[in-house]
């Protein structure tokens, strides 16, 4: 009775049960499911080449599995039989030893297969759409980069000509106009450079910086170089620029990164500090090296960052205070670049007024 029920049940479920006999021949122990009937006709002889190709391959694997005497069942991946009427039959086979009987069950997966396919379909379509969008964005960014780059070339000529004019003899009114034009052109140069820097940092790969101390930048050298470059600019604005750490440094401090970009990060932070400082203020650049990392701070006595924009300060196009002709990309560049190197940047207000930007860098260590 139980045997009849099992037989009927397997038939209803469109399952196939095969048994491997001592003579090495597979014998069907269930009704022939519809997909098999379509494949080989109701009568269906014993196995061999007449099994559908995937099943034939699995039966060979099952035979080996039984020969090896592995206790755990062997499970096939899913496959799909397509009957001549175009119907798909998703199937999965398992080989297991049941009380010494070497059996293969072939399950008809039906709804489970449909569900899995729907999930995978959606996941893959999303991946394809994401890739396509990413490529589109990349193309547009490259185009924009070309445009911005082209804008830079004539600007160099304008700045050069204005500089020559500024050096020449002229009355006070003209001198003032030339100075304004020159200042505007230089601001525009800075904005274009920031845009190009951001492009470069976003398109760069993780391979474009050094972890090896033999190639990694020396923070001390980078700080010295940037302070030398910006010293005269600060002096012209009567803003002090000091670094006690640099004065006390006796040995290189190798950090994960790239020298030119590290100097650009420091330059952006110094430019930022200078922009918000008044004559007579002082900007301090200090750093402290620990075993694994280095912390660097740049502090000013400017008005500080308004509380309303602190949360978004490091995003693109965010400007603190009056824009003063900046693109709002400098801090974004710093964050993006430092995070690529495993570092970080943060902001904190100073009392009674002012800002401190805190940069964390990883030390480039041997091994």
């Amino acid at each position: 009775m139980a045997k009849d029920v099992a037989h009927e049940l397997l038939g209803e479920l469109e399952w196939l049960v095969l048994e491997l006999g001592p003579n090495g021949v597979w014998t069907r122990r269930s009704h022939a499911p519809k997909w098999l009937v379509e494949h080989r006709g109701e009568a269906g002889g014993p196995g061999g080449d007449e099994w559908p190709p995937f099943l034939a391959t699995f039966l060979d694997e099952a035979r080996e599995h039984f020969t090896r005497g592995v206790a755990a069942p062997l499970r096939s991946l899913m496959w799909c039989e397509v009957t001549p009427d175009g119907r798909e039959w998703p199937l999965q086979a398992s080989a297991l030893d049941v009380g010494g009987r070497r059996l293969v069950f072939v399950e008809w997966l039906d709804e489970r297969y449909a569900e899995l396919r729907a999930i995978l379909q959606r996941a893959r379509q999303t991946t394809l759409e994401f890739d396509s969008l990413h490529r589109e964005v990349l193309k547009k960014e490259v185009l924009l980069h070309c445009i911005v780059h082209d804008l830079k070339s004539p600007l160099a000529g304008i700045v050069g000509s204005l500089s020559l004019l500024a050096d020449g003899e002229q009355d006070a009114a003209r001198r003032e106009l030339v100075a304004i034009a020159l200042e505007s052109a230089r601001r525009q140069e800075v904005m274009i450079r920031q845009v190009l820097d951001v492009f470069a940092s976003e398109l760069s790969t993780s391979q474009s910086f050094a972890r090896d101390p033999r190639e990694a930048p020396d923070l001390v050298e980078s700080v010295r170089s940037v302070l030398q470059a910006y010293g005269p600019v600060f002096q012209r604005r009567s803003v002090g620029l000091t670094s006690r750490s640099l004065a006390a440094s006796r040995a290189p401090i190798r950090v994960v990164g790239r020298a030119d970009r590290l100097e650009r990060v420091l330059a952006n932070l110094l430019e930022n500090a200078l922009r918000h400082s008044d004559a007579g203020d002082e900007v301090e650049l200090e750093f402290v090296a620990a075993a694994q990392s280095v912390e660097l701070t740049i502090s000013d006595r400017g008005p500080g960052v308004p509380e309303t924009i602190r949360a978004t300060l490091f995003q693109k196009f965010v400007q603190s205070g009056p824009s003063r002709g900046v693109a709002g990309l400098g801090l974004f560049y710093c964050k993006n670049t430092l995070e690529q190197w495993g570092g970080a940047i943060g902001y904190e207000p100073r009392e009674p007024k002012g800002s401190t930007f805190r940069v964390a860098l990883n030390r480039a260590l041997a091994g």
Partner: protein
Amino acid sequence: MTPTRVKVCMLGSFAVGKTSLVQRYVKSLFSERYQTTIGVQIDKKELVIDGRPLTIMLWDLYGEDEFQKLSASFLRGAHGAFFVADGTRAQSVDHALELAERFAPDLGDGPRILLVNKHDLAAQWEVRDETLARLRAKGWLVLCTSAKDGENVERAFELLARAMLERESD
């Protein structure tokens, strides 16, 4: 004459057009709708090459990605293989080559062809001619195909079929 029966596997990333190539070849059909393959789907094509009947069993294997990894057991007994890439996704060529390398021991010295599909979208191609030239120079038989308009599809299967028959005759 009893037809020679051969097993041919289609391998490549997901959505490169493996199923579409098989459908184009076996049923002369093409659908714009992408339908992902799970596991394997097997189709049969009978043809005659120089008077010799041949039955090709086409094992259209699911595209490998982070969700499904290919198993070597599918390749057991294969006589030849197509490695399929999508010309609009340069990465899919790298992946096809990586699969070719990974499954080289399972495929033995059976013939293989690299199909760079979706040639009907040539304007959107990321795969450069120099890349294909470099692969040809390395010994790969590379064909640019289009399951959509049928470009090089018959030719690809015929070339592989001939190569398999030649190998059988040796």
